Structure formats: C-alpha cells, structure tokens
C-alpha cells in the first residue's frame, strides 16, 4: 500500500476574493471572514481527492481532522486514517466516522500544517498532497524538506511557487499516476513567497524560500516522432558538466543561490549554500553565504571575476530575487560579459516570447543588464533570451 498524506489549509485563498491579497496571519483570516469570504480550498481539494478513488485499493490516505482533510475525504467517499492525534499509530476511521479535533473546527494556523506533515512523516507517508498557496508550501517545506514527495493543489491567493499542479484536477491525476508507478522521476521545485505586508502596500517582492521535491511532469513530453526525451534533471546535469568542464582558472566565481547552481557545485565537488551566495576560487569555496559587503570586499583582491546565476521563480528573475547580495555594485564591477546564466531547457521554455528580469534596485545597472543574454541549458547548448 502506498501511504499518501493529505492536508488542506482551509483558510488558503480566503483573502483573495475580498481584496486582502493573501491569507497569512490570523487577523487577516478574521477580517476576510467579516468581509464575507468563503472557505473554498476544501472544494478545490475535493476535485483532486475524488480522483484518488481510481486507485483506492492501492493506497492508504492519512489526513487531518475536519476541514484540514477528513471532510474532503468523506465528501470524496474515500477511506482515510487520521495521522497522529490521540492514538500513536493513527486511528482507522471509516468514511462516516470522521472525528474533529478542536483546532480543526476553529481557525487553523500554519503550525497545524507543520504538525500534520510531521505526523505524516512519522506514519511513513511517501507522497503528500496539500491544498493551499505559497504560505502553505512554506509550512510544508519547513516540516518536510526534500525527503518526501509533495504536490500542491492550487488553492491560495498567491501561487508563485513551482510546487503546484496547473489546476486541482491535474493534481489529482498526477497523484494517481504516481500510485500507478507512472511518474518517471522527481525534481526539486522552488518554494517562493511574497511578503504580504509589502504586497498590500503595492510592492511585489517575491523571495526564494527553498525547495520541495515534486513529481517530474516535464513539459517536454515524449513524442513518438521526437526521439528520446530527457528530463529536467538530465538538462541540469548536462549544463552542470559543461560549466564545470569550462571552469576558468585564476577566476573568482560568485555563485548565486538555487538548485541549479547547487547542482553545478555538486558536480564541482564543492559545498554549497542553497539559498545564499558562495565564492569559489581555484576549486575551493573561499567564503560561504556572503553578504553584499563581504562579496565586494573579496572582489577587490581578484582581477578576473565571474557571476554564476540561475533563473529564479516563474517570473524569471536573474537578479533581485533570492540573490540580492549580488547587488548592482557587484554586477557593475564584475561586468555583464562575465555573467554566466544557466537553467534547465524545460524551465527556459517558459520564456518563449517572454523576457527575463533583472531588478537590482539600481536603474542604471538594470539598463546595463537589459538586452539579449545567453542562458546555458545543456552541454554547449544555449538559448538567447531578452532581459528586461
């Protein structure tokens, strides 16, 4: 039996329709309810969960009481177990016997989501379906890391992360494919979030928080006439090999954050700060998780400098999201021609007819970066993309 965890953030998306641009924080939830908001994430989860009936003989579903999952399972006619709770191994319940914990009846918090995930892991769950938005994804990430396979059912106001299926139905379909052993591979996908306080003030500042492991449903679908398809990870492996094989001596490399640059560092046999900036010289990390000031100071000692970055988030930021330490001044000193950008071929397909962005906070440097840039997508394989 395959153990699947289901957690629904019942208040996800509640702020959206009443114009609150998010649902993070208990005050916001209260305000949304006062404004007449309706909890819809359960309905979205239901679309996905109903599909699990196709493989119900092969799965055990672990979930949380009430609106955090049990109600959805009952509506879908799916048997489930409550993870953790009052009994150590989870309590077997029929679809008619859902019990409700006090917290699930009232307003839930991010702590509830994290608790649920911890209980899933203790119960040996191998695939977690969650309904929510970017905030929920962060909570899942905090508790699950990249050890367990996760997939988001999009139900929040903010969906900037790459861990969600395109829509709830496809989340369900993908879960069914997983149970049937049809998922070819997994990949790490970005968990992004924007600062809701800033967003409410009209400023969009998305940040890269980390990564979750999701099923690899690459857009490069195998097609009989097209020859062999390869996965996103193959593409990252190849571009990593290329960059490592062409690593220049006597050059300071400023390595940005992200899973792609992490893969390059792994190929190079070097430790890496996933969400920070590392400096490498002659096959050695000379500084880790640097601030802008540290980078500028170290740069002074080196004549030859390269900046190695990947494309962050669905909007496609080369600079200004998740790597703000590589500041306008760092870029100005290194020079545009010394920027190495790398991302998987699959990811770059999202930028056909769309530009990448550089938001360094310095208009002059933004203009300096604007124009076409090569992005490495494989071994000696580049695409030309416009930077705005």
């Amino acid at each position, binding site marked *: 039996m395959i153990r699947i965890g289901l957690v629904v953030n019942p208040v996800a998306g509640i702020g959206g329709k009443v114009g609150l641009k998010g649902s993070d924080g208990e005050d916001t939830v209260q305000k949304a309810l006062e404004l007449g908001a309706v909890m819809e994430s359960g309905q979205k989860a239901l679309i996905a969960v109903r599909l699990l009936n196709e493989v119900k003989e092969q799965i055990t579903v672990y979930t949380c009481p009430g609106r955090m999952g049990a109600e959805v399972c009952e509506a879908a006619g799916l048997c489930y177990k409550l993870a953790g709770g009052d009994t150590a191994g989870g309590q077997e319940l029929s679809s008619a016997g859902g019990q409700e914990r006090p917290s699930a009846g009232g307003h839930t918090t991010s702590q509830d989501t994290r608790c649920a995930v911890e209980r899933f892991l203790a119960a040996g769950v191998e695939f977690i379906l969650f309904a929510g938005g970017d905030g929920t994804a962060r909570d899942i990430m905090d508790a699950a890391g990249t050890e367990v396979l996760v997939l988001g059912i999009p139900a929040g106001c903010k969906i900037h992360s790459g861990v969600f299926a395109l829509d709830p*139905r496809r989340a369900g379909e993908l879960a069914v494919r997983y149970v049937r052993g049809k998922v070819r591979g997994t990949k790490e996908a970005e968990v992004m979030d924007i600062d809701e306080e800033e967003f409410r003030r009209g400023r969009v500042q998305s940040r890269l928080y980390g990564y979750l492991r999701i099923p690899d449903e690459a857009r490069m679908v195998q097609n009989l006439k097209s020859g062999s398809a390869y996965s996103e990870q193959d593409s990252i492996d190849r571009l990593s090999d290329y960059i490592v094989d062409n690593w220049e001596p006597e050059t300071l490399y400023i390595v940005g954050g992200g899973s792609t640059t992490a893969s390059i560092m792994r190929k190079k046999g070097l430790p890496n700060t996933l969400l920070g900036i590392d400096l490498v010289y002659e096959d050695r990390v000379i500084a880790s998780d640097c601030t802008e000031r540290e980078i500028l100071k170290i740069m002074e000692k080196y004549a030859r400098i390269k900046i190695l970055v990947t494309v962050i988030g669905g909007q496609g930021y080369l600079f200004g999201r998740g790597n703000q330490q590589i500041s306008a001044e760092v870029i100005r000193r290194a020079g545009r021609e010394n920027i190495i950008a790398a991302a998987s071929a699959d990811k770059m397909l999202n930028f056909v007819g769309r530009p990448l962005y550089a938001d360094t906070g310095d208009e002059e440097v933004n203009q300096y970066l604007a124009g076409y840039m090569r992005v490495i997508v494989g071994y000696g394989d580049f695409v030309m993309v416009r930077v705005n």
Partner: protein
Amino acid sequence: MGYYKKNRDFHEARWDEPFIMEMGNPGERGVLVPQASEKVRERSGEASKLIPAGLLRKKAPALPELSQMQVLRHYMRLSQETIGTDINIDIGLGTCTMKYSPKIHEQLVRAEKFQELHPCQDESTVQGILEVMYKDAQYLKAISGMDQVSLQPAGGSQAIFANVQTIRAYFEEKGEADKRDEIITTILSHPANPGTAATLGYKVITLYPDENGLPDLAALKAAVSERTAALMITNPEDTGIYNDRIRQFVDIVHEAGGLCVYDQANLNGVFGLTRARDAGFDMCHYNLHKSFSSPHGCQGPGAGAQCVSRELAQYVAAPTVEFDGTKYYLDYQRPDSIGKLRAFYGVPSVLIRAYAYIRSLGPDGMKSIAELSILNNNYLIKKLLKIKGLSMPFAEGRFRMEQARLSWQELTEETGVTTDDICRRIVDYGFQDYFTSHHPRVLPEPFTPEPVETYSKDDMDEYAAAFAAIAEEAYTQPELVKGAPYKAALGARIEEECLTDWSKFATTWRAYQALGK
C-alpha cells in the same frame, strides 16, 4: 460532389497476435521440399559440402518453425492492424503527410530490371540508373539554385550531418575551424539541426520566436560573432509562417563570416516559388522521400540530397555521379570531400521515384503542387479554427504555408482533455493518430496538420468534422476522450514511459528476452 461521412462506425481489426518468435512448433515446415533422387545425389554429393566451411553455421539459427499458412495468416493479420495513407485521410502528419505519389512509381521500382541491380556491378553495366541519378542531381541544382549535389546521404538527417561536416571542412581550409565553434539555429527548426551540430562538437545557440512567431531577428544580431560558424534554419518553420525576413537573417550571418544552411526537408510549400540560393543560402538539403514521392515513415526508405554553392562544391559527400560526355560514372577523385557517409551510393528506389516525379510534373507542375498545398492548408485551418477550444497561436490573421501548428490549450484548460488524448481518440474515427510537435513542445497542447496537395475538399471536410465531434465529446464526456482508443487494433494504451525508460526498452527479440519478458 460534396459528400463525406461524419461517422463511419469504424472499427479496426484486432487480432491480439503474438510475436512470430513465440509461434510454431519444432518440425513444422512451410513447404515440403522433395528429396533429390539418388542419381542426382550421386552427381552432386552432400549439399552442405558445397558451401565453404567458413560460411557454415555451427548450429541452426533459433528461428520459429511454422507452416506457410501460419506465416501468411500472421502477416495478413498484422497488415490489417495498420493504418496508412492508402486507407485513411492521412492529413495529420505535419511535415510528413504523404505527398503526391502516383502508384505507377511503385511499378518502376518493382520492375525486374531495377530489382536485380547490384551495387557491386561494374559502372558500364549500370549506366541507366547512373543516368537517372545524374539527372536527379541536375534537376535538384535547378530547384535549389545550388551548384553541386551529392545524393550519398541515406536520409534527411544524414544530409544535414553532411552539411555540418562541410561547414567544418570549409573553415578548416580557411584556418578558422578552432575559432568558429558556434552554430545558431531556432527552436522551431527541425531538431536534427542542433542535433548534428552538437554531434560534430559545435556549441548550439538557439533562438526563440518573437511575438509574431518568427525567429527573433534581434536575438540573432545579439548571437552572431566571430565565433559563428553557421546559421541552420528552416523556413517556414513548423508554425507554417513564412519568414519574409529570411534574407536579413542570411545577410547578418554572412557579415559575421558564417555560412547559412537551409533545412528544406519538406519542400512542398515552396516548390518553384523560392530557391535557397536566391535567398543567399550556401547550402540546403532535401528529404527526397518526403517531398519527391516515396512511401515513407516506419524508418524507411529515405534518401537525402546535399546541395551546396560553387564555393563549397569541393567538400560534398563522395562519390558524386558525373557525366564525361559519353558515360556516367561515380567520381571518387574528390580530395577535399568530407568523404563517404555510408556504403555504396544513394537509395536508388527513392531516387528513381524522385526522377519520375520531377519528369512527370515539370516545373509548372511542381509549382502548382506548392500552390495547392498552401491553398488546401488555409482552407483546412479555416474549418478547424471554428472548433471550440482549438486555436492557432502567433501571427493572427496571417496565412500559413503548407502546414500549421495549432493548439488545444483552451480545450485542455476547460475540459482536462489533452492533445495526446485527442490524438488517441482520432483513431476511433478511422484516422491515423496525428503529429503533435517536434521536440520540445514550444506551444502547449500542439497539433500539426498538413493537408498537402492531394487531399480533396471532401477529404478535408471529413477530417475537420471528426475533430469537431471529438471537441464536442471533450466538453460533454471528457472521460470518453481520455480513455481512448476503443476501436483501434491496440486494445491497450501504449505506455510511453517505456520509450524513455531504458530498463524497459527493447528493439530486438534477444533484448526483449534479456529483460526477462
């Protein structure tokens, strides 16, 4: 006039036929060969002793033993489980739809005189086929505007490979091979272009389309440099949009010192309308099996033609067929040639069909092929775009050439039914599944029809009606479409994962057995 069926109540034969290797019993024979009389045996001796010892197998091959009837039945059943251009309206094979291919051409290649030719015969005994090949090359020079042709390549990709080898030979001669190590292509050109370039060690720079669906000219300007060896590009690309700035592309690359290669695998939309050399290209290639009348698909037979300008003539694949005024001969005396690509020369069955195609149509006929294929395509597009959920991204309102890349994205978003679902469902209506897109799928949920010059208005109406019916099903009974096919020879869905999971992949019986099946 104007009659077509909207629903043929089609059901393909389904025999659940085993592999022939699993059939038969020891000792079963196809034909009982009578024993030779004693007198004959005395004169001839043991038959097995007539064969040199080195050629004799040590043990009999592990072949299945079946009667003639069983063998015939097996292959007749398999033949009923195929759908080809002779039995269905085969419009959906964008770039590969069978073009004008008169059946009389099959009589030419099945004629005894042709079938008994052997590639090891002396030139003096094969003057006829050498003349056909020589004249093919002369016609292709006229069609392309180029100055030298090699018919050595066994297929389109090998011709592209030959062109990349020619690029390298040219820059080696100029002493620039080390410096010029980049080849520029577009994401909607055929994948064999970046594929062959990478195989020969070039870095590949890929351009995306601009907002009009044409290759991004500004991106090309940013990509070219003193490292540029060549531009390899298709026009029109798979979108069917003719790139009317193609001369600018060529000029930009030439100014940077690079060469320009035109992928003309599918010539149908531009026969007699444009020529590669006139647009400034240095090289092009043709898939003769695709554009010049040959049954193709299922891995053969193919034939490629490498066509180059005077400046590059010395490098083409050897040998070439030449004529000295009295006789035709294979010219191996080409010291600067990139060499042989394969054993022997050309694929004669395809080359003889190409000759018949060119001779029977003439220049006016070939031009009308292009005009008709464009007319047909734009008629079909107009019909198809009335279907809910189907759209044609890029360059709205602009006519397409001989094919178009459409998208079911809207239908997928509204119903969950994908292009792959529709591709399987169309088989239930009695049509071959269709070509979605080359790799990668730049446009979501792609569909690439190509009605070519041979299909009638009724054929196209019937084809469009089937898709309209499937779209209606998608909106009313999506599960029906997602579960397809129901009436095809294959009862079960092909698990495409097996095509990329090498641990489950086998192309021979031995490999299949090694997997423990």
